[in-house]
């Protein structure tokens, strides 16, 4: 049996989660300092991938990154095509997972008592230190929860990935896509195997991460107790 969908799924989800974590955190930190009516629109844009059907997201990405798309043309100039390649699976998964990371990270950062940040400022800390040494460690349990959600979402991504990355075995075929085409080709045994692998993988990873964050989360929660 060809195990490549498993490795592709893992590599795609991990890479997409790492990107989402950094971009989501940065966006949440940037957004937290701003207010105004325009920001509601910005929030709307950030959350769109969560409410739109993944096929819509995938199609829009295809229009954007395809050979005739604005970004695709730019990429062609440097000799790169993204569509129907492994990076496309990462982009699709990252875009779809981004709102979950953004939402949870923002909620976690907003929960940090502003007095801690102010105390850090009066002690001479730069804004980067205030964020990295005070806000982020205090928001960490929430950020970690967002990371788990993003990873789970990336692992289950199907629609956007299929549209943007297609089904190229050994290259862009992730587990969900392998299952879809196995069912379509009436290879029920193969579909069932991949389903079992997917369920097992998700369970192990989520249970492990949950156990780990729960232990951490309890430790952090004690801080706020007086």
């Amino acid at each position, binding site marked *: 049996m060809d195990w490549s969908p498993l490795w592709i799924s893992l590599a795609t989800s991990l890479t997409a989660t790492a990107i989402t974590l950094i971009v989501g955190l940065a966006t949440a930190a940037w957004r937290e300092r701003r207010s105004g009516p325009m920001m509601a629109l910005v929030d709307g844009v950030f959350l769109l991938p969560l409410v739109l059907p993944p096929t819509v997201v995938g199609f829009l990405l295809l229009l954007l990154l395809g050979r005739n798309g604005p970004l695709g043309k730019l990429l062609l100039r440097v000799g790169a095509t993204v569509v129907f390649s492994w990076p496309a699976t990462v982009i699709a998964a990252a875009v779809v997972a981004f709102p979950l990371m953004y939402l949870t990270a923002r909620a976690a950062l907003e929960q940090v008592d502003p007095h801690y940040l102010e*105390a*850090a*400022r*009066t002690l001479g800390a730069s804004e980067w230190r205030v964020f990295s040494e*005070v806000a982020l460690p205090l928001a960490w349990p929430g950020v970690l929860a967002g990371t788990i959600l993003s990873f789970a979402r990336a692992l289950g991504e199907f629609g956007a990935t299929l549209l943007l990355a297609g089904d190229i075995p050994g290259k862009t075929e992730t587990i969900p896509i392998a299952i879809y085409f196995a069912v379509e080709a009436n290879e029920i045994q193969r579909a069932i195997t991949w389903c079992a692998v997917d369920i097992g993988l998700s369970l192990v990873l989520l249970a492990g991460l949950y156990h780990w964050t729960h232990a951490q989360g309890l430790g952090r929660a004690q801080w706020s107790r007086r």
Partner: protein
Amino acid sequence: MSLEIQIEKKLPDFSLEVSFKAVDEPLSVLGPSGAGKTMLLRCIAGLENPDRGRIALADRVLYDSERRFSIPARQRRVGMLFQNYALFPHRTVAENVAFGLARMPSAETKARVATLLERTHLKGLAGRHPRELSGGEQQRAALARALAIDPDALLLDEPLSALDTHLRSQMETELLVTFAAYRRPALLVTHNIEEAYRLSSRMLVLSCGRIAAIGAKEEILRHPPTVEVARLTGCKNFSRAKAISETSIEALDWGCRLRVARPITTPPAFVGIRAHTIDFVEPSAGPAAGENIFPCWLARSSETPFRITLYLRLRQTTGEGCEFHLQAEMFKEKWTRFRELPEPLQVRLSPEALILVPE
């Protein structure tokens, strides 16, 4: 060093408009909740910007609206002690204290932290997290952290309000020691007159964003410029008043004429008397007991473990919805001498104890 402040800032219910100068000694900022005390500290620390004005510390301008100039909090070198201390919960005591010393070489940081912890009696607790400290220890740690950056001014926001009563007097003593060694401008925000009185020799009374009084504490207590200042500094009895001669006034709400200790210079609008200065005449004193003596009736009383507060009427009935005229306070031992006497008791409002308030 001196801290010069002249700022205006619009707040939801009123605007903060203050102008004063603090020198190298603690200054208490006294006022009721919501008078703008905390906002004043936040403006000095650079956590908020005023709408207009100027703030200068020693030879550095921290804020100047005319030059559109405001240095960020991190460069102000103003130490701030927050009401709930705001110790970083994920850092140990030593790490908290060292936070402001990030730019020093590590050996120097270690030495400085050790000195500060020693001075604040936290040496054995360096490795603990804030949640493992008592309220008093948390305050010491927060103070050590604020002093670590060698601030040019120190701002304390209700430093004792989060502490249990039994800890307060101990921490008060420690704060006095800190102030004695600090010798730079220190603003201490409080709503407790006793705290303010014990911790500083100068006082600023803030009311609805304005300075109601500023100066030596004894002077403010003896000659409060307004009824509000008198009330904020603990005076509980007031009556509208008008002068009727050079040495006597009529207390309109109390319905009596009172002799005053010194010739009247500015005509008083109110007369006040502090609850603990009200006295009863011993039955044995006879007619030579003194001046300003009136019959009174007890409306009700309330007790604390050692003291009693007596609510007194100067007539048998009061009318117009007022239950009592005067509120007197004394030790219970003293009250036992008068408790059994038949009413009316004879109350004495000693001329020296009367406070004449111009407005």
